[in-house]
């Protein structure tokens, strides 16, 4: 039960972009479409889970003073693996995510989990934490990306949803950077409004 909770907390209580308000750079930059969001999310799940596992396994070995450097090395390794793998096997996703895959290294969510959770907990709990937070992150990215894609381009996962008339005159503002900020802000406001009674 308690172990399972490590997974589920990432889906609502500690939903990264909305609750922890962490890792906003990729959230805003890559969510031009639901596919991009999903791709980024999966990459983050992979990196987050594995770095959590490794950091947790090595937590007694790594000296405190060089822990951040060690975490970065570990995270960077997985990020480069992800980058090469997407380049080799999912080239369109690689093109769409571009610079943001290397930037996963400095994604606060991953370093934050390594520092705040994995370095203090066991391997299984850390793996579940990584999976859960990663899943929550992916979910948020897909929702945000989907919303922006639907309004901004009239499609969802590249499937044409809206009529052709809408698509040719879509509200592409949502695909621009300001649209991302506004969309994120509105979602944040809605989430705060929904969960306000429970927190007070």
């Amino acid at each position: 039960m308690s172990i399972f909770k490590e997974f589920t907390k990432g889906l609502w209580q500690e939903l990264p972009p909305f609750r922890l308000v962490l890792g906003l750079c990729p959230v805003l930059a890559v969510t031009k479409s639901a596919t991009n969001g999903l791709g980024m999310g999966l990459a983050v799940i992979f990196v987050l889970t594995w770095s959590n596992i490794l950091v947790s396994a090595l937590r007694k070995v790594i000296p405190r003073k060089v822990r951040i450097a060690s975490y970065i090395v570990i995270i960077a390794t997985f990020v480069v693996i992800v980058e090469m793998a997407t380049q080799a096997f999912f080239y369109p996703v690689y093109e769409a995510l571009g610079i943001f895959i290397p930037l996963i290294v400095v994604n606060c969510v991953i370093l934050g989990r390594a520092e705040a959770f994995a370095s203090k907990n066991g391997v299984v709990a850390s793996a579940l934490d990584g999976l859960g937070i990663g899943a929550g992150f992916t979910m948020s990215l897909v929702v945000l990306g989907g919303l922006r894609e639907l309004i901004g381009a009239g499609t969802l996962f590249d499937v044409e949803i809206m009529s052709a008339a809408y698509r040719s005159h879509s509200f592409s503002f949502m695909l621009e950077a300001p649209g991302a900020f506004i969309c994120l802000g509105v979602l944040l406001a809605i989430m705060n409004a929904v969960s306000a009674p429970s927190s007070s």
Partner: protein
Amino acid sequence: MKEIIQMIGVLSLISGVCALALSGFRAATAERIEDQILQNVQGPKVKLVLDKADNDIINDRKTISVNGEDVLLFIGKKGAEPWAIAYESTGGGFGGDIKVMVGYDIGNDTLTGIQIISHKETPGIGSKIADDQFTKFFKGLTTSTKFTTKPQGGDVDAISGATYSARGVCEAIRNSVEIYPQVKKQMQSQ
């Protein structure tokens, strides 16, 4: 002292293991990545340039050496016979280098078309060089055409507001045409 040695040791060990893992992974994927880049970046453009070819152009590529520089040559075939070739060349634009893929019909020495591979021109103005409206003009021109813009005494229509960018494209084509005889000779000799 012991602490420092431990710190150095652990960090070096982690870095070493990571580096090893990465180099292994790189070796395993290098070939596929190169292939993917060809397929996805140059591939579509080459296919547009050599639109009448019926072979797999990306696979039928070879690297030849012209004036000491490597040129990646794409060969389009009609049936079994080589029909046209295409290779990339570079010209200076407004914001940086413009890379252009130029295709040649080796039968009658005309251009089968050009495509802009990459450029850094101003969006909305200079970027018009990548529009079909501009690139389709070059289709069917002979290699003896004067590839400079009209204000400079050539045959190419400049784009209003993007004269400099159009000049860059012309420069790339001139560079390409310059080495065309050598490329053709080498290709046929092989």
